[in-house]
């Protein structure tokens, strides 16, 4: 049963992923990624973290993708259907892709062989608290600094975006 659920979720991620990457219309691409994200949220849930599943839905589906859609509509991008989808001269890229695929295939055995040797540094035990409780506990103690750093990063992004777009309005017409 677990396996079936996993397989469904895996397919539910890979196929929309592929469709998103290959679709001509960016709106469709974003919507396919939405499907992917929702399945991934469920996958995270089956991996034991209901919190991350929720964050995934809220942040990705709720914020990031909406942002994407917003931009797509803003610059009105639906004309790509008349255009080429892929860049020219894709042979080198194809080689690289094939190499990676090959390398991953090779390293799969290596990774799984390694997995028994993983050591838990910050061990958690579900009998003492929920997953959320454990995450919160370490996030606000051990990783407090990094947590704050991420906050600052987000702030910088917001400021940067506003700054860039405002600044440019004034110098519009100049060459870059």
């Amino acid at each position, binding site marked *: 049963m677990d396996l079936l659920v996993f397989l469904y979720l895996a397919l539910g991620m890979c196929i929309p992923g592929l469709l998103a990457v290959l679709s001509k219309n960016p709106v469709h691409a974003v919507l396919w990624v939405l499907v992917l994200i929702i399945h991934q949220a469920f996958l995270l849930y089956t*991996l034991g973290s209901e919190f991350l599943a929720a964050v995934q839905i809220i942040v*990705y589906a709720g914020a990031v993708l909406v942002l994407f859609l917003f931009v797509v509509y803003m610059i009105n*991008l639906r004309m790509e259907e008349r255009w080429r989808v892929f860049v020219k001269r894709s042979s080198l890229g194809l080689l690289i892709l094939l190499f990676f695929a090959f390398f991953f295939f090779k390293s799969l055995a290596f990774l799984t062989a390694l997995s028994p040797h993983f050591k838990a540094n910050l061990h958690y035990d579900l009998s003492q608290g929920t997953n959320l409780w454990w995450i919160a506990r370490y996030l606000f103690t051990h990783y407090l600094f990094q947590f704050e750093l991420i906050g600052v990063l987000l702030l910088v992004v917001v400021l940067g975006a506003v700054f860039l777009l405002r600044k440019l309005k004034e110098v519009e017409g100049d060459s870059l």
Partner: protein
Amino acid sequence: MIPFEYYVLLTLLLFCIGLIGVLFRRNLIILLVSFEIMMNALMILFASISHYTKDVQGYIIVFFLIALAAAEAGVGLTLVVLLYRKLRKVYADEINYFRG
């Protein structure tokens, strides 16, 4: 119990799918979307390691990754909008302003 390598395989597959977009798509928006897919692939890997080793670090990294992805999307989309305003182009291979 689902074997660990299934998760690894899923990660690699998704990563490669993202890679296809990154390598070949011309549309900048879809380029960014592909980056998101690659990042999501990594999240699965971290979460599954966490799950299998009973270690909370992986979850925390996933949490950071989500935040990071949001930041990245923000910056990336800002730049796309910027480019569009300046050049009226969103196709990667048409924007060759920096050609040597």
